[in-house]
């Protein structure tokens, strides 16, 4: 009994020491909150987090002379932790700018424009449309389908707005919404069987289709144009979220993004090249 208590006391002290060390170790790092299930922007390679956002932040770190510390967690917690600023200075996870989020955190300039895509089995009966050389799927075509999205991503927000909220395109129709933790997982396990369609950002969509052993296709998701206007893509812009008031970091990020967004002779930006590289498409 005595031995056990002594052991536990010793451990508590050890933990305490670690804690003190950890809390002393401040200032030299930038803490970045992410959710590393969002290839090609961030994903696990073994135990290490890699991706486009990682490369961007490494450049920010170099510019500021600080190390980057990545923290992986639920996507939904990123805005909270960045807004609090206690455990994270910024969040980089392919975060779409929304007015609600912009209330809580400062956003860098957008560094990537993503279009919402749908992933379908090749033999899906979902109708496609073609206009101006682009094949796409409109929301209306998804009526009655079981739709999967990754929790808290933009696709999830769109699906929620269009399926569950009054005034949405598919509101009141027979749709089943399925929330997943990882789109790639849903694709590999359920698409074509229990799930009819996945709504996800353009790049991950292309990446999943590219890398899946099964026969999938993906198309951009469009809103049907009203009153004769042409159909329009469901678009969104990614930016890095920074704790409000941390202008030093925000400025450094914007500087890095400015450099990376310069088009080269082929009209490609550095970021687009990174995206392609991480998707294994260069």
């Amino acid at each position, binding site marked *: 009994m005595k031995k056990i208590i002594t052991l536990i006391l010793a451990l508590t002290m050890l933990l305490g020491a670690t*804690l003190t060390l950890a*809390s002393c170790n401040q200032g030299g790092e930038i803490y970045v909150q992410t959710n590393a299930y969002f290839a090609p922007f961030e994903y*696990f390679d073994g135990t290490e987090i890699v991706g486009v956002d990682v490369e961007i932040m490494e450049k920010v770190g170099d510019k500021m002379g600080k190390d980057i510390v990545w923290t992986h*967690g639920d996507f939904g917690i990123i805005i909270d932790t960045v807004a609090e600023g206690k455990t994270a200075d910024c969040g980089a996870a392919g975060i779409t700018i929304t007015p609600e989020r912009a209330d809580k955190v400062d956003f860098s300039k957008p560094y990537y424009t993503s279009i919402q895509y749908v992933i379908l089995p090749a033999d899906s009966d979902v109708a496609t449309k073609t206009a101006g050389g682009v094949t796409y799927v409109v929301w209306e075509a998804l009526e009655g389908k079981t739709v999967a999205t990754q929790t808290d991503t933009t696709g999830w927000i769109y699906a929620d707005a269009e399926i569950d909220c009054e005034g949405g395109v598919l509101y009141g129709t027979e749709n089943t919404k399925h929330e997943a933790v990882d789109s790639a997982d849903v694709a590999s396990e359920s698409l074509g069987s229990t799930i009819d369609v996945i709504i996800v950002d353009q790049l991950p969509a292309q990446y999943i289709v590219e890398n899946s052993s099964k026969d999938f296709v993906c198309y951009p998701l469009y809103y049907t144009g009203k009153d004769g206007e042409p159909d329009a893509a469901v678009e969104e812009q990614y930016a890095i979220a920074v704790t409000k008031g941390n202008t030093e970091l925000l400025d450094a990020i914007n500087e890095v993004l400015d450099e990376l967004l310069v088009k080269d002779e082929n009209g490609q930006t550095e970021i687009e090249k990174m995206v392609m590289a991480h998707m294994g498409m260069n």
Partner: protein
Amino acid sequence: MDFFKDIGVLVTNEKYMGMLFEGLGTTLLISVFAALLGLLIGTLVAIVGIAQDSPIMKLPKLICKIYVTIIRGTPMALQLFIMAYTIFAIRGFPKEITAIIAFGINSGAYVSENIRAGILSVDIGQTEAGRALGLNGRTTLIKIVIPQAIKNVIPAIGNELIALIKETSIVSMIGMYDLTQAAKIIGAGNNMASYVVPMTVAACFYLAIVYLLTFVIKIIERRLRASDKR
């Protein structure tokens, strides 16, 4: 069968197995220390719970009651979440410690009930004999009652430990690299692009630990029973 072929692919892949073992390390680290912490908290709370009513004990008793009620009345996942994102929202704070404390506190509430029942199951005559010899209440409890209570509660504590090990799988929620997280990453699109296979292998890992633990508990039980037979 693709499934069995894929399992073969996973278990022969050094990188993937390394990831699983690294995750297993975290799972075991959290489980072991959380169990010890839970045992300590549980014992203290149980002793406060069975202490005689007196004005001094009123507040501790109330605190312990609230503690047990809250912990047993809320989901472990939410306790972990609150612990990670509000209480220990300190930058650079090791997640392992957050998890150990969260699971230790959770386990303590359940263990305290087990220990309380164990202590109450020891014949009152044992206490009376100790007190009649002039030993004080504390010595009687420590030297006579608790050793006998431990024997009674080992099976229940063992079950609690097993539940604890399996429950630690939710630490992937706060981004920790445990066995379940390793399986998730192996299942991600850039690796095996299938959850079912790595999850199955991870499940086998859990099963192996739990089986081993069951075995160890049996041995401990048998040794503690030495005073019953022989």
